Structures are given as C-alpha cells and as structure tokens.
C-alpha cells in the first residue's frame, strides 16, 4: 500500500482511535462505573471512526466495484479480528476468527493472490478452526472460566497492538513507495529463471493466467528442500502425537492393572 501525501497523520489518528476502542472493548474489571456502563458503545464508535479513517487514508484502487469489495472485506477482517480478542465465549471467538480469516482470504483474492486466498480458507478456516470448534464445543463446561471473563492487561495489549500496527503500516507504506532494486543483487538462479520465464503481461491489473502454475514451479523448484522439510516436520509432529497418546493409554491400563 502506498500512502498518499499527507495521509500519515490521519492514519496515525485512526490507529490511535482503534487502540483506544480496543481497550474499551476488552473485558476488564478495573474501570470506573460510568466508563464501564458506556465502554462498549464508546468502543464501537471509536472502532467505526478508526475504520473510516483507515479507509480514507489508503490509496484508491481504481474501479468503484473493486474499491467497494476491498473496503468491505478489509472491514470484515478487522472487525472479525477485534471481536476474536474481545468476545468472552470461546466458541464465538473461534467463529469470529473464522470470519477474520475469510476477510483476509477475500483481501488476497481482490489483490490477485488467488492461491493464497483460497489456501487460507482451506487450511485455516476449513481444517484447523473446525478442529478448534470441535474441542471447544465438546469441552466447554457450564459458564465461562475466569480467563475467559477478564482480560489480563487490556491497556498494555491495546497500546502494544496500536504501536505495532502504526509502525508496520507506515514502514510498509514507505518501503513499497520506493523501488527496492538498490539492495538486491540478482542471483544466478534468478537470472536463469528470468531468462526462461515468458514476459509478464503488460497490464498489471489483469489477472496472471498462470499464477498458480508459476507458484507451484517456484515452490517445487527453488524451494523444494524447504517444502520437504516442512512436510517432514508435520509428519514428525503427527507421529509424536500418536506416540504420546499410546503412551498415555499404556500408563492408564498399567494403573488400572495395579489397582
């Protein structure tokens, strides 16, 4: 995202409003009475203002439809992420997180990274979160645990989140504004690949028809060792989980035999 001139104050203000809203929304016990009564409404209002500010501060995307879809999915991702940490019920937190992931996947789709967008849904929302929901639904006792009801350090976490968000946005905005060619020495593999690959389409807005094929060739060409190592790591984790389970069963039956 490239920042337009003069947008930085607006951006920082929005981030500050976002952090303040987050602090108000986080469940806490140490607030004054009047603040406690108004905190949720005030927090939502600040959050909405922050969203509006962020929407205004960014660069325009081009077409009206594209812009609208981008803003909507971005808002979905932000609201979902905020609600994930703010809500008290673990099941609702998981569902809000799934919504945030859907928003992120939508952002990736709008920006042309189709494979990443769809893979985010398949891997996170489709597999991992369903497992989480399973466990939460099966293991939820009546009522909420203390760690669900109260947030530990609402002020510190809101400030830390706000500072991180502001720094990242500003620095990424600066970085992508200038061409990064200065600091990169092209490697031999890069040069070979550049020579072998067909020329990129002239229109950067058009979808790359071979994006997925290119990504696959890159993953299973240059980064083959990393992919294999990640696969091996997952396999080891799987075997480890089975080993832990079977050892637990063995210990249990030994205990029963002793009794």
């Amino acid at each position, binding site marked *: 995202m490239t920042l337009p001139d003069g947008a930085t104050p607006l951006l920082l203000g929005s981030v500050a409003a976002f952090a303040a809203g987050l602090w108000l929304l986080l469940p806490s016990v140490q607030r004054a009475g009047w603040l406690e009564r108004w905190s949720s409404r005030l927090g939502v209002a600040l959050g909405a203002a922050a969203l509006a500010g962020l929407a205004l501060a960014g660069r325009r995307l081009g077409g009206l439809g594209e812009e609208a879809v981008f803003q909507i999915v971005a808002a979905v991702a932000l609201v979902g992420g905020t609600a994930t940490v703010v809500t008290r019920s673990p099941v609702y937190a998981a569902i809000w997180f799934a919504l945030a992931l859907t928003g992120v996947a939508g952002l990736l789709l709008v920006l042309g990274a189709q*494979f990443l967008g769809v893979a985010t849904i398949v891997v996170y929302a*489709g597999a991992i979160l*369903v497992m989480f929901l399973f466990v939460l639904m099966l293991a939820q006792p009546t009522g909420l645990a203390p760690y669900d009801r109260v947030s530990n350090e609402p002020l510190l976490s809101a400030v830390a989140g706000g500072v991180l968000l502001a720094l990242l946005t500003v620095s990424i905005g600066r970085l992508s504004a200038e061409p990064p060619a200065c600091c990169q020495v092209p490697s031999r593999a890069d040069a070979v690949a550049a020579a072998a690959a067909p020329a990129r389409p002239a229109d950067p807005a058009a979808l790359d028809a071979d994006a997925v094929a290119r990504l696959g060739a890159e993953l299973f060409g240059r980064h083959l060792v990393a992919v294999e190592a990640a696969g091996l790591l997952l396999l080891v984790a799987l075997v480890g989980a089975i080993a832990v389970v079977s050892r637990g069963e063995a210990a249990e039956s030994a205990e029963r035999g002793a009794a």
Partner: protein
Amino acid sequence: MNALLPSATTIAALVKIGLLVGGLMTAAAYLVLLERWIAAWVQDRKGPNRVGIPLTDIRLFGLGQPLADGLKIILKEDFTPSHVDRVLYNAAPLLILAASLAIFAAIPFGSVLPPLGIAGLPDPVPFLVAPGLDVGVLWVFALSSIAVYGVLLGGWASNNKYGFLGGLRSSAQLVAYEIPLGLGLLGVVLAAGSLRLDRIMEAQAASGVWYAFAQPLGFVVFLVASFAEAARLPFDLPEAEQELVGGYHTEYSGIRLLLFLVAEFLHMITAAFLIVIMFLGGWHLWGVTGAGTEVTWAGALLRFAILSAKILGVIVFFMLVRWSWPRFRFDQLMNLAWKVMLPLGLANLVTVAAVEELRPWLVEHVGSSAAGWLAVGLPWATFLVGWIVAGVFTPSSTDNTPILTHGPLDAEHDLDHDPLDDVAGGHRLEASPR
C-alpha cells in the same frame, strides 16, 4: 460517471449468476420429486402423482408437487425453541446455503458461447460465473469446508443432544472424507495440468480419453468420497433418522429447515457436477461435440445438453444407491476413509504421477500409440491390484458381528453377567405375556 456504470463483464457475470441460481433452485425442487418417484418405483408403489396445475383437475403426473411441497414448508410455523443460541441458530442455515451456492462460481455448466461481439466482453463467453479464477478446484474445496460450519453450528446452537451428535458426526465425516476426495482430484489435476474445471474438461475432450477410463482407481475413490461429502446413503449418518431424529437440523422447522434441505440437495448436485466434469468428460461425447472452443450456437447448446444429461444420470445413480445399500456404522465409515480410501487414493496418485513423468520418454522410445496404451494400462493394473488388496486385507471393516475382545472397560462389565438381573433386584424378569 463512467466508473459508476457496471461493465459488460459485470453484467455478463450477473446474468450467469441469475441463470445459475434460478436453474439450481428449480432443479433442486424437481429433483426432490424425482427422488420420491424413484423411491416409489424401487418400493413398488405409485409415489406422488396427484398434484398438477393448481385450481384445475389436471394432474400432469404430479408435476405440481414441488410447488405444493415448497408452499407447505414455507407456510409452516417457523418455531424457535427457547433454549437455543439465537444468533448462531439463525446464522447456520444462511451460512450453509450461501456457501453451497457460492461453490458454483467456479463450476462450469457448459462449454462456451459462440462470439457475441458485444463491446467490452471478451469472446468466447464461457458458461462459468468466474472465468478468471485460476484455482477453481480449490475454490470448491474451500467453500465446501465453509459449509461444514453451517452443520456444526446448527447442531451446537440447537442445544439439543440429537442435533449436537448429528453435527459432530457430520463434521467428522466431512473432514475425514475430504482427504480421499482431494487425492482422487489431485490425480485429475496432475493429468490435466490445471486447477480450472473448464480446462480439465477441455483436456479430456482433446485426448478423447475421459479420466474415469485413464484413472479408474481415482474415479472409484472420488465417487465414494463424494457420496460421503454429500451425506447420501450409505453415508447419511449425520441425520440417521432411526438414531438421531433428524441430526443437526432436528430443532429446525419451516423455512430454515428448507434452507438446510436445499443446501443438502445442492451438495449432491455439486458432487454430480464434479464427477461428470472431472471423470466423465464434461460436455464431451465422442463424435458428437468436437473438442475445440470454436462452436456454433447449436454446438454450444448440444454441449450444454450433454453435460446436463450426464449430470442427471449421475444424480439418478445417487438416488438408486440410496435404496440399494444399508447405512454404515460409524467405525466402518472411518475405517473405509482412513484404511481403504486413503491408501487407494495415494496408489492412484503415485501411478498417475509415474505415468505423466514417463509419458514423454515412452513416446520417444516405443511410439505414441503404444505409450497411450501403457498410460491407460498401468492405472488399470493398479486398480486391479488395489481392489484385490483392499478386498483381501480389510474384510472385517464391513463385518457386523459384535467384537468381543476384552478391552480395559470389560473388567467392570462382565460379559456373562445379565444386566437385567440388576434391574430386577437380582430376580430375573419374566417376559410379560402379550
């Protein structure tokens, strides 16, 4: 103001969405009627044949039945029990229907139209809502995994034991069978070299060899897995009526129940689409349709008709299977997924990968026709070996005799001890005379 007007591509997409959603909803309604007719035929009775044109005596073989069914279920009381989690209870049916419909954005429902010559609209116009989506197959996967949420949340939010058990069973089943489904699909993607469903159809039309013939093992694995994904008999454990009343939608009534039922039917239609597109050649038929993307209007309609006819055939097969096999037990279901379908899917994938890797070498050394025969023969050899191995080494997975092993729990429950003795305080109950 030009930016505010929708472009020709947008209008074309909206028209396609309208046609597709309208067609799918009508098809779902009439497929319910077809299912009832087939059930009646299998059970040797007449089935619904009364309702015809409203307010007249014309019966029309019962073709008015979907209208009557729909009106009846919409006009029923939409009751919300007091013990449910209201937000999720209301969201679940909407979520599942939205996800099931959005799947069709990436599924082609025909070939292409001949050039229309409309400014701003790239020719030829494909029968596909999102033609630029390069990850069609993954999109289908992603959205069907979103549909799992509808089932899980519907079951949990109902706050009802039957509903919850149905939701858990369903999501466990869907997650387990996504793996063999994906393995069956990977073989096709590998052979076609594209994740786009329209390209997969074009690849089959170009070679003339449908993937069901080139990858028989993958076809069987995918077929079984898609029955499980659509939760059709013999995999309809999520809503096994005899055990769970209605499974995850036990507490639903009226139009929200209708949304769940339509979503289930859409899952079956999606499965039929995928089977036809990926394994049965899509719109291609030897000697009738041709292979390229240059078509006349008659050719385009013919391809559409052939694709629809194939899909209808697969759906009829689904419905006949429903009345031909009993339901699996849950352990059998899981054994089948993890111990039979997963290894078979892997065997198919390895075979296809080997064939695709060896094909250029074979063409060079033994000639192209011999290479073609080998490329089809090797998967068939794998199919036979896999079938024999699966049949010989997993016989117990369909055995219904109770397993009388002495597990850790059996110390507390003596198998010879009659539990009725405890109920009657040590005195054996006499069978009451009836």
